[in-house]
């Protein structure tokens, strides 16, 4: 006898997802999730994007989440389906991307029996998810799904995994709506007002200030980015962004100093080193940003605003910390600033800006032009110039091309820049672009790629074609794992151990084999033409640009060096890196 109020677990799951606002799932079916797929086929509220590998499903959901600000959703089967998703989850954990990943599991009575396609996925993903659940009773399913979405999007966002044994989605149980689900997880969003007042006082009294802004502001929302822009412009202070923060402040604004860190601009890194007040909003003093810690910005008072208390005083001890959501804290700072009308030291600020302009004058992103070979920086600049009027979404893979894109694109709006920052996952860009295009079908979505990274998830070309996702992929092909080659050249005596691939596919033919369009440029004078051609096609396109294999990313703070010890270019190689610190700490 079936109680009329009960539903199957699969029905409950889909109802819960709809109630959570899910309109698309990225997934791949398999034995343990067949009841869910069966239910999926009976409805049309949720669209399913069938990927070709589960890792790509997670990156696609990341792309969806980061370009919309909503929670991305993934559905994969048990065992290998779930373990394939692990890299994506770790990526989302590092970059604070809100996801809910549903994994199938063997029936509860078989758990622990080494059953077919069984993996202890809650055990495996415990350190690389924000939280995870194993649902053992159909009556707890709805509540668990609602809580998972709440946890994924609240506080510092992150991936949440729900493991669903097959019997739990087949059995019947009661549905519980989100309104009846209370969670004990409620992180602090309002910052301490006294600390905010103190921060405003420190900021107003600064002589050599800098805003150092990270992805936390983008995670906080578009409103937070607008408030940040308003506040920075009110002060007239310089602003630098981390890799994850690009787009939080307009790239075309004269107050913007470019990205900072290992491949940041001279003006950004020097200003960080010499500042007297550093205002860190939503950044985490990552090692790629700070360089050698004991030489990091030695003369400054540091303010750190972050929603995650564990980010504070983790790598760098700060003078004033404010725990809270960036939007709330910046809003309060603006209020206090307006109420107090502080008098800033205009003279000191003018002197500081003239110093910054001096550094800016070094034009640290310049590169030797060529009319015979395509410089990768040139390709990226032309790509940007020819597409910026369409406000494209830019995804990247990981490596040199990623850094050149971060340096040369001057993005003006948040949510349009998607890159794997924390984990540095090669193969991120194509599936992420897939997720972005799914969320924004009419937008221009570009994946800037290297020929090595792109091959890590190249199978997703088929997904693009199947689902009519006209993503544009621009491969800068320099025949090498470029960043590995660069480190080998600069740090390992130019011994290019296994960084060269002797054989690559013909990318034009490859695109065609998948049913997409393939284009190629081999000389600088062909670059504009292929980009125009690419933009004219409303289908997925691979553009291969044969670029200069010897080009390196500069400026560069060598591992273990400080912000004021940048290597500026090929000719400036005097500071060779020892590879480890005096006390024996190995540098990465």
């Amino acid at each position, binding site marked *: 006898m079936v109680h009329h109020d009960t539903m199957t677990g699969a029905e409950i799951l889909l109802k819960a997802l709809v109630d959570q606002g899910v309109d698309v799932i990225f997934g791949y079916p398999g034995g343990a999730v067949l009841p869910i797929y069966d239910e999926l086929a009976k409805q049309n509220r949720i669209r399913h994007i069938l990927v070709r590998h589960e890792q790509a499903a997670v990156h696609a959901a990341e792309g969806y989440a980061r370009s919309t600000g909503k929670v991305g959703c993934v559905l994969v089967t048990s065992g290998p389906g779930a373990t394939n998703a692990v890299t994506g989850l770790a990526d989302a954990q590092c970059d604070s991307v809100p996801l809910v990943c549903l994994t199938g599991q063997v029936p509860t009575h078989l758990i622990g029996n080494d059953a077919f396609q069984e993996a202890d996925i*809650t*055990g495996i993903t*415990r*350190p690389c998810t*924000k*939280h995870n659940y*194993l649902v053992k009773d159909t009556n707890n399913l709805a509540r668990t799904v609602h809580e998972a979405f709440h*946890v994924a999007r609240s506080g510092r966002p992150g991936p949440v995994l729900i493991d669903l044994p097959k019997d739990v989605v087949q059995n019947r149980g009661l549905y519980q709506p989100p309104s009846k689900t209370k969670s*004990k*997880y409620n992180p602090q969003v309002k910052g301490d007002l006294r600390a905010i007042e103190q921060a405003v006082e420190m900021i107003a009294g600064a002589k050599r200030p800098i805003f150092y802004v990270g992805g936390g502001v983008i995670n906080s929302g578009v409103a937070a980015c607008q408030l940040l822009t308003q506040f920075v412009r009110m002060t007239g202070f310089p602003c630098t962004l981390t890799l994850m923060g690009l787009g939080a402040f307009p790239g075309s604004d004269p107050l913007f100093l470019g990205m900072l860190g290992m491949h940041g601009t001279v003006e950004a890194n020097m200003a960080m080193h010499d500042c007297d007040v550093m205002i860190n909003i939503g950044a985490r003093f990552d090692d790629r940003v700070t360089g050698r810690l004991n030489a990091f910005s030695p003369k400054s008072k540091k303010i750190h605003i972050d929603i*995650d*208390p*564990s980010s*504070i*005083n*983790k790598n760098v*001890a700060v003078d004033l910390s404010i725990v809270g959501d960036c939007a709330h804290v910046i809003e309060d700072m603006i209020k206090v600033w307006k109420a107090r009308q502080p008098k800033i030291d205009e003279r000191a600020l003018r002197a500081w800006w003239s110093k910054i302009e001096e550094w800016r004058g070094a034009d640290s992103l310049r590169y030797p032009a060529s009319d015979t070979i395509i410089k990768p920086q040139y390709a990226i600049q032309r790509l940007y110039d020819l597409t910026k009027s369409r406000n494209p979404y830019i995804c990247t893979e990981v490596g040199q091309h990623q850094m050149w894109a971060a340096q040369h694109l001057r993005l003006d709006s948040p949510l349009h820049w998607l890159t794997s920052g924390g984990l540095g996952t090669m193969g991120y860009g194509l599936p992420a672009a897939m997720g972005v295009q799914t969320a924004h079908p009419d937008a221009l979505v570009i994946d800037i790629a290297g020929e090595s990274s792109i091959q890590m998830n190249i199978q997703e070309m088929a997904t693009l074609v199947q689902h009519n996702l006209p993503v544009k992929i621009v491969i800068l092909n320099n025949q090498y794992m470029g960043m590995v080659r660069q480190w080998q050249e600069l740090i390992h005596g130019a011994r290019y151990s296994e960084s060269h691939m002797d054989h690559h596919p013909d990318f034009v033919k490859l695109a065609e084999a998948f049913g997409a369009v393939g284009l190629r440029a081999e000389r600088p004078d062909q670059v504009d033409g292929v980009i125009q051609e690419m933009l004219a096609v409303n289908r997925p396109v691979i553009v291969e640009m044969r670029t200069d294999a010897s080009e390196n990313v500069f400026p560069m703070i060598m591992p273990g060096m400080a912000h004021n010890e940048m290597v500026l270019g090929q000719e400036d190689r005097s500071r060779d890196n020892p590879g480890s610190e005096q006390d024996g700490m190995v540098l990465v």
Partner: protein
Amino acid sequence: MTDAVQDSNRHTISVLVDNESGVLARVIGLFSGRGYNIESLTVAEVDAHENLSRITIVTSGTRMIIEQIKNQLRRLVPVHKVHDLTIEGPHVSRELALIKVASSGEKRVEALRIADIFRARAIDSTNESFVFEVVGATEKVEAFITLMQPLGLVDVSRTGVVAIARGPKAL
């Protein structure tokens, strides 16, 4: 915070958590994954109605590390409260040990005599052995074990430290 506390780098941290499967693995995984020390860890349900367990962890590290440990613990979804008993005012801590001593003659008499001094109770006895139960601060338990060593110590089982703040207030 007094200077004396700043110098001490051993901290007793009391953590109130949901009593659900995997919660201990989360806490232990956090410590191993991030390279923190665990000197002692105890866990048991303390409130069946609210379904809460208390984990008491003795750990050591610099001030920045200890702060990290507490903040990382607070980040775990099933963790409700994290209190550093070492810096939040006076607390009492105890551990219990069961100590098996096998000897005869004068050594056996001496073991009993020392047990008496430490207020350790013999909870099992055969003609050639005792099991003593000793309760107290870690230092006392350790002193007792050291003294038992030459008297035929064969086995030790310890609970690890449990601790609670002094005074009328709850965690």
